[in-house]
C-alpha cells in the first residue's frame, strides 16, 4: 500500500545527505572529541563544523549553540538553568498555556521548588497577547518562555513583540522553537530572544540531536554536570554522528528553506480549503499566522483516534489531540485553551506536510478524508447533532 506521511510535526524522515554526513562518525571516525590524537581531532572538527552550520541557520554565533539530546532537554535546560542562575534576583516565571509538555512540566516542577509561574491565556486563534506578557511582569520576574509555533494548532506567536517587551523590562526571554526552526525563517537577532530550543529531527535531521541557543553573556546553570564538553555547560561525550547530522540538516534547511515553503504551503492551502467544504469541520489555530505545512481541525460528532486509525488503514499517517489518542487519555490542553469544548476536542485531527508531500498525495487525501468522516458519522449517535449530550465533565475513572 502507498503511504502518505502527514505527520511531519511528529518527526521528519532523515534526508539522505544527512545520513551520508553521519555515517563516517559511526565507522572510521569514532574518536572522542576530547582526545588529542588524530581521530579525536577529526571528531572535534565535525562537532565544531556542525556548530557553525547550526548557528548559521538561526543567525547566531557558534559559541552560542549548546548541543543537547532533544528539544525537550533544551527546554528543561533553559527553564531550570535560567531559574537557578537567577533565583537571587527573583523567582517568577511567565509561560503560556499552550507550551509543549517539556516546558509546561518543567515549569510545574519549578513551581514545586518554590518558583511562581504565570500561565498566560491565548485567544481563540492561539495567540499570546504581548500586552498580557507586559502586564504579567513584576520585579520578581526572571524568565519569559513562550512557544514560537504550536505543533498542535500551527499558530506562530508574536515573538518579536514579546522579545521587545522582555528587553525593555530586562527579563530573559526563551522560546521553544522546535516546531519552527528549519520550517520557517528564524533569526535570533530579529526575534530578540536570549534562549531558543530546537531539534534536528524537525528539519530532516536525526533524532537524538537538539540544541539550545544561549545568547552570549547569558548565565545558565548546567542541567548535566561532568566534564568540559559544550563549554562545561552540558557534560557527556558528544553524540558525534547525531551532531554531524544536525549540522548537515541545518545547512540543507538554510539553503532550501524558501523552496521548501514554496512547495509545502500551496499544497497545505489546497488541503485546508478542501477540508473546509466538509460540514461541521473547523480549522483550529490561526488561519494565516501558522506554520506553512500545518493543517489542524476538529471534526464534529466523531472521535480523533478513530479517524487517525481509519486514515492509517488507507495509508495516511496523521496525529490527533483527542483524549483517546493520548496515553494520558486527556483532551489536548492546547485545544481547551483556545476555547474548544471538550466534546469537540475529541474530534481533533492534525495533518503536517513535508518536502516529500506531492500533489498526488493531497489529491488522494482530499478524496479519502471526507469518506472516513462520513463512515464514522454513520456509526455515531450524534450524526444529526449533539442532541441528548449531557454537558457535564468527564467522571470516567481512567
Amino acid at each position, binding site marked *: 500500500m502507498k503511504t502518505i506521511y502527514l505527520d511531519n510535526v511528529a518527526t521528519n524522515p532523515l534526508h539522505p545527505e544527512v545520513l551520508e554526513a553521519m555515517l563516517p562518525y559511526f565507522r572510521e571516525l569514532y574518536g572522542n572529541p576530547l582526545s588529542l590524537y588524530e581521530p579525536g581531532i577529526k571528531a572535534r572538527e565535525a562537532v565544531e563544523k556542525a556548530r557553525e552550520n547550526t548557528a548559521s541557520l538561526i543567525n547566531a554565533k557558534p559559541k552560542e549553540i549548546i548541543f543537547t539530546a532533544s528539544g525537550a532537554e533544551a527546554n528543561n535546560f533553559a527553564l531550570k538553568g535560567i531559574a537557578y542562575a537567577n533565583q537571587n534576583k527573583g523567582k517568577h516565571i511567565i509561560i503560556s498555556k499552550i507550551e509543549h509538555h517539556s516546558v509546561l512540566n518543567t515549569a510545574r516542577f519549578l513551581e514545586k521548588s518554590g518558583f511562581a509561574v504565570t500561565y498566560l491565556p491565548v485567544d481563540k486563534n492561539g495567540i499570546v497577547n504581548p500586552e498580557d506578557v507586559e502586564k504579567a511582569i513584576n520585579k520578581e520576574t526572571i524568565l519569559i518562555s513562550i512557544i514560537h509555533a504550536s505543533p498542535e494548532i500551527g499558530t506562530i506567536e508574536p515573538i518579536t513583540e514579546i522579545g521587545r517587551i522582555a528587553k525593555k523590562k530586562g527579563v530573559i526571554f526563551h522560546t521553544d522553537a522546535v516546531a519552527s526552526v528549519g520550517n520557517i525563517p528564524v533569526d535570533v537577532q530579529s526575534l530578540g530572544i536570549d534562549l531558543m530550543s530546537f531539534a534536528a529531527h524537525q528539519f530532516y535531521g536525526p533524532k537524538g540531536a537538539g540544541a539550545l541557543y544561549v545568547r552570549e553573556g547569558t548565565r545558565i546553570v548546567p542541567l548535566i554536570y561532568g566534564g568540559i564538553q559544550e563549554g562545561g555547560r552540558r557534560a557527556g561525550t558528544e553524540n558525534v554522528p547525531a551532531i554531524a547530522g544536525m549540522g548537515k540538516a541545518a545547512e540543507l534547511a538554510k539553503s532550501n528553506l524558501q523552496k521548501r515553503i514554496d512547495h509545502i504551503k500551496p499544497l497545505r492551502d489546497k488541503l485546508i480549503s478542501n477540508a473546509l467544504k466538509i460540514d461541521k469541520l473547523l480549522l483550529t489555530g490561526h488561519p494565516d499566522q501558522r506554520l506553512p505545512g500545518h493543517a489542524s481541525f476538529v471534526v464534529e460528532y466523531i*472521535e480523533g483516534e478513530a479517524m487517525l486509525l481509519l486514515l492509517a488503514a488507507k495509508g495516511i499517517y496523521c496525529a490527533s489531540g483527542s483524549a483517546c489518542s493520548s496515553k494520558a487519555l486527556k483532551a489536548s490542553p492546547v485545544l481547551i485553551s483556545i476555547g474548544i469544548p471538550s466534546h469537540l476536542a*475529541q474530534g481533533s485531527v492534525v495533518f503536517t506536510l513535508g518536502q516529500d508531500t506531492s500533489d498526488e498525495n493531497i489529491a488522494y487525501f482530499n478524496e479519502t478524508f471526507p469518506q472516513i468522516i462520513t463512515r464514522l458519522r454513520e456509526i*455515531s449517535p*450524534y450524526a444529526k447533532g449533539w442532541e441528548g449530550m449531557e454537558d*457535564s465533565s468527564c467522571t*470516567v475513572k481512567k
Partner: protein
Amino acid sequence: MYSEKVMDHFTNPRNVGEMPDANGIGVEGNPVCGDVMKIYIKINEDKIVDAKFQTFGCGAAIAVSSMVTEMVKGMTLDEALKITKASLAEALDGLPPQKMHCSNLGADALHKAIADYRSKQK
C-alpha cells in the same frame, strides 16, 4: 496497539445503525470523556433476536460495540447480563489497559438496554 480482532471489528463494524422497533435502548458514556455507546436490542420471549449500535468514540469503543452486538444475538436476557467488561475484552483478544475502562462501555450499555426493556414490561 490493538489486536487483529479489535482492528477487524473497528474497520468492519457489525450491526451499525438505529433500530426503529427496538424494545430496549441503553446509552453509556459521555462525549466529554471521548466515548458514548448507544445499544438497541429487540427482544422476543426473553431472547435477544437482534442488536444494533451507534457509537461515538475511539477504535476500541467501536470494536467493543460491534462485538457486544454480535455476542448477544440469540442470548437470553440472563445470559446477556453475564457479559462483562472482561469477557468482552477477552472476546476481542484483549484491549490496551488504558482502554479497559473508558472505551469498554459495551457491557454497561447492554445492561442498561435490558433494564430499559424490563422497566417497560412492568
